[in-house]
């Protein structure tokens, strides 16, 4: 039996000790010799995770669900493995951006949005309140048990008058204690060294107390672990607790609840406001994380070591009595009269509860003040806050008020709903609430595409589903809302039953809530992020967060302030929130860092504005600080382009270098083009030279004969008449050849220059072929070669220059006559109407043309064979001219040949559409055209060649 005054005075002494530790640590910090700059203190402070829920509740959960108590500790252990990546990044970002809370962190990531900050704060407060009330309940129950020594107490003080309710006093004392701890002064750094030191000490106390009671039960009441387990096994139903899924539920249901609890615990260790506070905001050195990664899981393991032993010990010891398993830790030693140990356990539990309440309420009060109250108050013109010289008092007042209100609300919740759930269930509902921060937070860390709208949508959707699937049923069990909503669904709609949403059944409440809330949260976050665009600030913050390892090297964070402000204005602003002395200190420090003699030499540039904003952010949060600085800086809005250009100077340089490379490539390619053009010009020059040389040769040859015989005739008058006639006919023949050549050269140059006077008309191909055959019949007769003509009666007319077309056919026929076999020459010409074209083929039985020469022969002065060794048998201009003519009519001229098997020269000319053929009725025109037979053979002056 412990007297009230003993218990109370020991508790008060303990709190006094904590306060002394905190006070000492604060003093050390002020003198620059931080007590908490130590990885072990940091790791111990993280153990604030183990609350009264762990201290008392683990045993209770082990009794009811066997291994069900483990996920709460396995989750964080798994998460620790990721800390070096995840936590380190968050800490680094928070240091760069002077993040003061989780709400601040998420809001800063999404463009310093006050709306996001407010939403996160509301979710955190609503989600955490039950958790706070849980701690009050634990303290009050423990107190009642200790001072009444009634081990069967259930729900201590519950329903009694307020003034005699220990929980109320506990709440008030804790509020006072927290206010003294956390809000003694307003620090721009927002760090609470004293509090961290005290929390670390508390972690030790609760560990020692738990190990002590564990040891007492195991070896004091029993004969070691083996004895405890052996005796427990004899109890009915205990065996099942050792086996996964052995508690009677369906196997999958139990496994699912283990997974979901593990999952929530993983996220809780990151996103519970108190964990954020100690792990991120209070972090002194990011390298401390290295130690915490192994030390924190070890702590969790050790504090859980005796959970099964105490659970089974309690079950054996209290078998058949209605002692609440949640109190075994305390009731087991008391039942053996171990009052001293009982007091130690009470203090341990007090440690666990106070640690949680202090850190949680400080973290929440910072969020409520910076992210909820200040933005609202600053926007309320009637308050004229913008004109007040010093707001530090107001800030502290808001925080103190928030702490008090939260503890009282927690008490209220405990009074009204506290009995509806076991401790663990309330804890998990809180875990599920803070898990809603995960998508926006983790997404924001690694995905630049996450937008403010996405964060708002995800948070809202997840929170609403959490409210509906987890909180509403809890309220229903407490009788605040009709149970019918849970059992039959709102308005009787079964699909909307909060515990079987859309027909999802077979899962426990937590798993069910996890699936739907995470689905809604992640879905809305991703969908809205993808469908909305970021503002300039959002974009810059996204880049600074995701690429923090890159940007922090520069050290300055964002420099997105532009515009005019004086140092005096910034000093006034800082004074209002930090106090005048602090503001001067801060500015002097800034000046010292820049090696200036005094703050008066400081320039009000973007750096200073940024500096002021981060200092303010430490006091009033990022979103509010941004708003306050914006109110004094006449900021010109930054366009997206400008932000990008500031942000990515490096990328500009890269772009410039890319452009240089591009220019260089263009120059190289231009040089290549020029070289190739030059080559072409050289080639053209050579061709012109060759052409002139060829023409010269072709002109000189007949001229030689003409001159020689003219001189012979002139110098030898004695020649007989027959010889003279013979020589004169040579002169005439060679003169004709010369004329022909000159005509062809002129012809070709006219065609190539496009100066030909084409006389296009409707032409009958049949008439053209017949005319050409008649004109060349003499050539075939001289060579004794046969010419077969295959011309059908009906061939459609074409549009062409008749005389030119005749020229082409005569050229092909005379070439065939020239190159066909001798003797036994045989040439055939055919005319065919094919789809869309008229086709003419001229086939000879000569020696054929080698494949390599088949295109060459259409070049000027090029004939089959080597022009150097083979005397050309024509001017070498006939085929080039013919091809030019056919192409002018839109047709094609080509040759097919196999050496030794003759050659076939063919051309096609497209048939024209009716309109082009000349309006009227084509068949009639064609009949008319076809009706006109060729002129008389040989009537044309065109000579073959």
């Amino acid at each position, binding site marked *: 039996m412990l007297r009230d005054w003993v218990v109370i005075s020991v508790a008060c002494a303990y709190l006094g000790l904590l306060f002394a530790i905190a006070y000492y640590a604060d003093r050390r910090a002020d003198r620059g010799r931080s007590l908490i700059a130590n990885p072990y203190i940091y790791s111990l402070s993280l153990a604030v995770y183990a609350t009264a829920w762990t201290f008392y509740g683990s045993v209770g959960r082990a009794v009811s669900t066997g291994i069900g108590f483990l996920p709460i500790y396995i989750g964080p252990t798994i998460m620790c493995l990721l800390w070096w990546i995840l936590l380190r990044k968050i800490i680094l970002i928070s240091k760069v951006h002077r993040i003061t809370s989780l709400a601040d962190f998420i809001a800063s990531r999404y463009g310093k949005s006050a709306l996001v900050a407010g939403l996160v704060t509301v979710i955190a407060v609503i989600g955490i309140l039950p958790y706070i009330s849980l701690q009050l309940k634990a303290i009050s129950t423990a107190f009642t048990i200790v001072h009444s020594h009634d081990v069967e107490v259930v729900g201590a003080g519950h329903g009694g008058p307020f003034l005699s309710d220990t929980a109320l006093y506990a709440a008030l004392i804790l509020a006072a204690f927290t206010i003294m701890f956390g809000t003694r002064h307003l620090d721009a750094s927002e760090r609470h060294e004293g509090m961290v030191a005290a929390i670390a000490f508390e972690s030790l106390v609760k560990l020692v107390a738990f190990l002590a009671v564990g040891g007492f039960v195991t070896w004091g009441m029993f004969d070691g672990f083996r004895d405890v387990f052996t005796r427990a096994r004899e109890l009915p139903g205990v065996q099942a607790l050792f086996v996964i899924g052995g508690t009677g539920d369906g196997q999958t249901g139990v496994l699912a609840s283990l997974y979901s609890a593990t999952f929530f615990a993983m996220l809780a260790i990151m996103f519970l406001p108190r964990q954020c506070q100690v792990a991120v905001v209070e972090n002194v050195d990011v390298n401390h994380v290295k130690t915490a990664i192994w030390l924190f899981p070890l702590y969790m393991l050790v504090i859980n070591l005796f959970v099964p032993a105490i659970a089974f010990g309690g079950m054996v010891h209290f078998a058949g009595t209605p002692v609440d398993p949640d109190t075994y830790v305390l009731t087991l030693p008391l039942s053996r009269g171990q009052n001293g140990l009982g007091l130690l356990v009470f203090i341990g539990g007090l440690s666990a509860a106070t640690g949680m309440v202090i850190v949680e309420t400080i973290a929440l009060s910072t969020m409520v003040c910076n992210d909820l109250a200040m933005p609202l108050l600053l926007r309320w013109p009637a308050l004229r806050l913008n004109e007040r010289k010093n707001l530090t008092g107001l800030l502290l007042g808001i925080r103190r008020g928030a702490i008090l209100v939260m503890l009282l609300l927690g008490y209220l919740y405990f009074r009204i709903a506290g009995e509806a759930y076991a401790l663990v269930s309330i804890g998990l509902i809180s875990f599920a609430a803070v898990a809603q921060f995960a998508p926006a937070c983790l997404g924001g860390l690694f995905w630049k595409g996450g937008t403010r709208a996405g964060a708002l949508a995800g948070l809202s959707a997840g929170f609403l589903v959490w409210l509906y699937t987890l909180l509403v049923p809890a309220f229903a069990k407490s009788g605040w809302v009709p149970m019918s909503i849970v059992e039959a669904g709102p308005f009787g709609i079964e699909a909307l039953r909060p515990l079987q949403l859309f027909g999802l059944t077979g899962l426990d409440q937590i798993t069910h809530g996890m699936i739907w809330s995470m689905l809604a949260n992640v879905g809305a976050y991703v969908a809205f992020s993808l469908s909305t665009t970021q503002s300039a600030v959002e974009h810059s913050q996204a880049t600074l967060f995701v690429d923090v390892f890159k940007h922090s090297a520069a050290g300055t964070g964002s420099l997105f302030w532009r515009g005019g402000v004086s140092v005096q204005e910034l000093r006034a602003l800082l004074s209002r929130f930090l106090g005048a002395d602090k503001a001067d200190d801060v500015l002097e420090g800034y000046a010292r860092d820049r090696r200036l003699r005094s703050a008066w030499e400081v320039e009000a540039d973007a750096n200073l504005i940024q500096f002021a904003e981060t200092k303010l952010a430490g006091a009033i949060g990022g979103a509010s600080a941004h708003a306050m600085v914006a109110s004094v800086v006449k900021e010109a809005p930054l366009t997206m382009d400008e932000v990008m250009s500031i942000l990515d100077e490096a990328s500009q340089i890269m772009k410039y270098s890319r452009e240089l490379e591009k220019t260089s490539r263009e120059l190289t390619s231009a040089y290549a083009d020029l070289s190739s053009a030059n080559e072409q010009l050289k080639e053209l020059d050579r061709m012109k030279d060759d052409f002139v040389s060829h023409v010269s040769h072709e002109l000189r040859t007949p001229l030689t004969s003409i001159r020689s015989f003219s001189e012979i005739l002139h110098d030898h008058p004695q020649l007989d008449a027959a010889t003279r006639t013979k020589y004169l006919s040579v002169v005439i023949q060679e003169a004709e050849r010369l004329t022909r050549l000159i005509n062809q050269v002129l012809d070709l140059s006219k065609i190539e220059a496009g100066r030909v006077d084409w006389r296009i008309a409707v032409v009958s191909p049949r008439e053209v072929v017949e005319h050409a055959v008649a004109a060349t019949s003499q050539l075939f007769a001289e060579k004794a070669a046969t010419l077969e003509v295959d011309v059908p009666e009906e061939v459609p007319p074409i549009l062409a220059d008749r005389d030119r077309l005749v020229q082409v056919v005569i050229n092909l026929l005379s070439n065939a006559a020239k190159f066909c076999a001798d003797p036994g020459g045989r040439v055939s010409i055919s005319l065919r109407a094919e789809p869309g074209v008229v086709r003419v083929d001229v086939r000879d039985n000569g020696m054929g043309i080698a494949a390599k020469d088949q295109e060459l022969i259409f070049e000027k002065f090029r004939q089959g064979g080597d022009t150097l060794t083979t*005397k050309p048998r024509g001017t070498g201009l006939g085929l080039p001219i013919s091809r030019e003519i056919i192409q002018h009519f839109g047709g094609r001229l080509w040759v097919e040949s196999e050496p030794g098997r003759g050659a076939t020269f063919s051309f096609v000319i497209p048939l024209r559409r009716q309109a082009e053929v000349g309006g009227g009725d084509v068949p009639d025109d064609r009949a008319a055209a076809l009706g006109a037979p060729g002129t008389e053979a040989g009537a044309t002056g065109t000579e073959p060649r």
Partner: protein
Amino acid sequence: MKKRILIADDEPNIVMSLQFLMEFEGYEVRTAADGETALQILGDFRPDLVLLDVMMPKRNGYEICQVVRETPALAGIKVVMLTAKGRDIDAEKGLALGADSYVTKPFATKELVATVKALLGDA
């Protein structure tokens, strides 16, 4: 004994005129219409001078000239290149290959005859 001249050209009318001019001067003339025929006749006929067209089928004038200069049995034959190609480079090439003279077509008959007589020492 009459001095002998080979006329090698693929233009029959030019051959006809040259033959008249050379025979009128009292030379014994043989003709060839392509390079290969010309080479055969060179061996059999053993001319004192050859009037050689550059552009001939089968073997061109340059090749014939080269064979003449490189064959000891043909040593001492005078070579007059005739060409319708009027470029300086063509003349240089002919002379470089050992031609004794190079005449561009069309030529003055009197000058050609004078050139031939001078080369044969009949002037």
